[in-house]
């Protein structure tokens, strides 16, 4: 896919999104209400309308072939780069999905091992050290010092004794 094609797709996608936002805003009154001023939907409705207009403007420039992006026929994401980007983005999504199941202290070491060992090709000993040390530091800083309780999933019972000791 070229940058020019991507520009077209993004503008269409965002145009559709702004129409959705307009429809959603219109669930509340978008006109003037006597003694109450503008209705609750007015502000987002007209802003979404301006958003739509700017998408149309971007499309207009695309048709006229104006600007460096609209004329670029370079590849949008180079194929040898795409692998890395997709791998990282995918790993993030899997990690977040795992937060709710095996908890942050189950998912984070897996993410760290994936990135440091398989993306970074660092040694196993370094990988293992970091995969243990980082979650420990996070537990100490966030949960003990700042009392921000992070998701635990099914690992929660393991933490009950720790809460007793530290909190």
């Amino acid at each position, binding site marked *: 896919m070229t940058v020019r094609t991507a520009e077209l797709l993004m503008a269409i996608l965002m145009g559709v999104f702004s129409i959705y936002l307009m429809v959603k805003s219109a669930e509340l009154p978008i006109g003037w209400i006597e003694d109450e001023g503008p209705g609750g939907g007015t502000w987002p409705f007209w802003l979404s309308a301006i958003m739509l207009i700017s998408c149309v403007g971007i499309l207009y420039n695309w048709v006229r072939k104006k600007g460096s992006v609209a004329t670029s026929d370079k590849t949008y994401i180079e194929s040898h780069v795409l692998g890395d980007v997709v791998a990282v983005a995918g790993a993030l999504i899997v990690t977040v999905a795992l937060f709710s199941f095996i908890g942050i202290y189950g998912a984070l070491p897996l993410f760290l091992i994936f990135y440091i060992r398989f993306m970074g090709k660092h040694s196993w000993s370094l990988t293992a050290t970091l995969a243990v040390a980082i979650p420990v530091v996070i537990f100490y800083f966030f949960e003990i010092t700042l009392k921000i309780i992070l998701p635990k*999933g099914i690992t*929660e*019972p393991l*933490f009950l004794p720790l809460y007793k000791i530290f909190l």
Partner: protein
Amino acid sequence: MFKTQHTLRKVVCAVGVSAMLAGIPVIGHAWEPQKPVEFVVMAGKGGGADKAVRLLQSIIAADKMAPVPFTPVNKPGGSGAEALVHMKGKQGDNHTIMFTLNSFYTTPLRQPGLGIDIATFTPVARMAEDTFLLWVHSDRKDINSVADFAKAAKAKGNKWIMAGTGKNSEDNLLTDFLNKAYGLDMKYVPYKGGGKVAKELAGKNADSTVNNPSEQLGFYEAGTTKALASFTDKRLPLFPNAPTFKELGKDYVYYMQRTVVGAPGMSKEAAAYYEGLFTKVFNSPKWQDYRNKKSLQGDLLTGDALMSYWKRERDVHEIMLKEMGAIK
């Protein structure tokens, strides 16, 4: 994706509870929280409810009343809708409690789509009822009574600005009452939070407000604003010169609850634990001192008495909202 999270939590809780039961076989040992308790606030940071929660949290922590910390989490979205939906998703959770206001009644009434039935929530303890007064700026030397107020407001028609906290909020209900009772046409301008409302009056950007005492106290003590009358049964000790609307011949009393609520379906043992804990907090000198300073009313109310109080108040609010035309 978002729904499964809640079911999962339930499973987790079940696992947690059973593990606990297996691990601690001491019969007769009362229930105690095992992990930090999430203390949901139905309002934003810095408001009256938030301040009260942080005080409650600190009383519990300072006097070591509980084995775990209570961590406040603000969920102000949608007039408390966000908090209510969150609590509903915590069905059966023994480690989530919430601090509520009157939006506990009005929000489910106005948004039936949320599917919230407050009768399913676990009553813990009503810690106080906050009061409302009618306030004007002290520079209005011509206004010294509700009668003067009504005259001045009538003369200005819909140019008289009443500042309050959001459409259909408690302040709006009271403004509607005043408009109706004295034949006024005040313009209601909503602001974010009672503190901001109080400031608009002190800065003369509004003509009158119906603040809680805690919100106006700073300006009142500095002599910037004055209270004309209170929406209570009896005169408040802090404002002995402000008559009640009852004395003025209008039978109108209105309070704001400050109540601790447990998640729906909380276990009996846990509910009893929180009830005992907050009874202790209620009787602590720090909370009593706060109640006196902020002129808070209302006795401690727990268990079934609290539940029937909720049901009664919900019916009262339903009638009020219907009269306003906010619901059908």
